[in-house]
């Protein structure tokens, strides 16, 4: 019997490891991102010292502006609500990260939960990425109002996603509840079909 349980991708049976390309010159490219360590942090943003503790434990400032994210080194923190953040780190580091945070925030009105397997993460890049997303997403992604560093919690197709822009090409990442991932992947692949030159 196996000594160690083998991890599987949520798209294991849909070929998610292989990037999907649509259009000549990769007008848009869709990839499943390997799992990251992820922590949900709940904290009162009005509690300045708690914020300070969290910052020290993470080594990075929590974004306090709604709809933004902030990354340094291998840590990215996504704003989720006025009292909630999603901290991403390299896979395997989450337990330690959670422990650090838990310890730093002990005795405060805060909660740290490992959610590394709660979501799947996709990368969408290429010049028509915006056109692909706007088929199912009502957020205005025009560069005048949404650029690298921005984030949106919104509905894409029929599911809730966390969508954030990581590059001007543009490049977006999105996280979706794992049980919805396959649906969203298929939806994106179908939507991308239009950009394949006939």
């Amino acid at each position, binding site marked *: 019997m196996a000594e160690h349980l083998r991890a599987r991708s949520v798209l294991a049976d849909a070929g998610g490891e292989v990037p999907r390309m649509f259009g000549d010159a990769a007008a848009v490219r869709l990839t499943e991102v390997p799992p990251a360590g992820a922590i949900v942090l709940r904290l009162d943003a009005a509690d300045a010292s708690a914020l300070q503790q969290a910052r020290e434990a993470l080594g990075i400032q929590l974004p306090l502006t*709604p*709809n933004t994210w902030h990354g340094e080194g291998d840590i990215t923190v996504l704003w*989720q*609500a*006025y009292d*909630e953040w999603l901290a991403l780190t390299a896979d395997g580091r989450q337990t330690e990260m959670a422990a650090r945070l838990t310890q730093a925030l002990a005795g405060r009105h805060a909660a740290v939960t490992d959610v590394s397997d709660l979501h799947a993460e996709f990368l969408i890049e290429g010049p028509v990425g915006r056109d692909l997303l706007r088929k199912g997403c*009502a*957020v205005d992604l025009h560069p005048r109002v949404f650029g690298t560093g921005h984030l*949106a*919690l*919104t*509905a894409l197709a029929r599911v*809730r996603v966390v969508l954030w822009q990581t590059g001007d090409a543009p490049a977006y990442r999105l996280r979706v509840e794992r049980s919805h991932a396959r649906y969203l992947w298929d939806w994106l692949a179908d939507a991308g079909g239009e950009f394949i030159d006939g």
Partner: protein
Amino acid sequence: MLLIPCPWCGARPDSEFSAGGEAHLERPDPDHASDGQWGEYLYFRRNVKGVQRERWLHSHGCRRWFNVVRDTVTHEITAAYPMGESMKETGPGA
């Protein structure tokens, strides 16, 4: 489709939200409320024609509840404010 101004995420189509009905309802003291008062609390709403304060949940976004001041005839929204904030004097009637 209404544009609901989430105080945090910004304005989004109402399909991203759940409507929570009239805001600032008082829950009567359960130990002292009569059946009549409890029934009022459960079922009776002002059903305002005009400007009303109501609750919305950004269910597909930040998952937070907040209050909105909206005209139920024109659908115009004049204010949105977080839960726990008292009724601001925003607009007539309400």
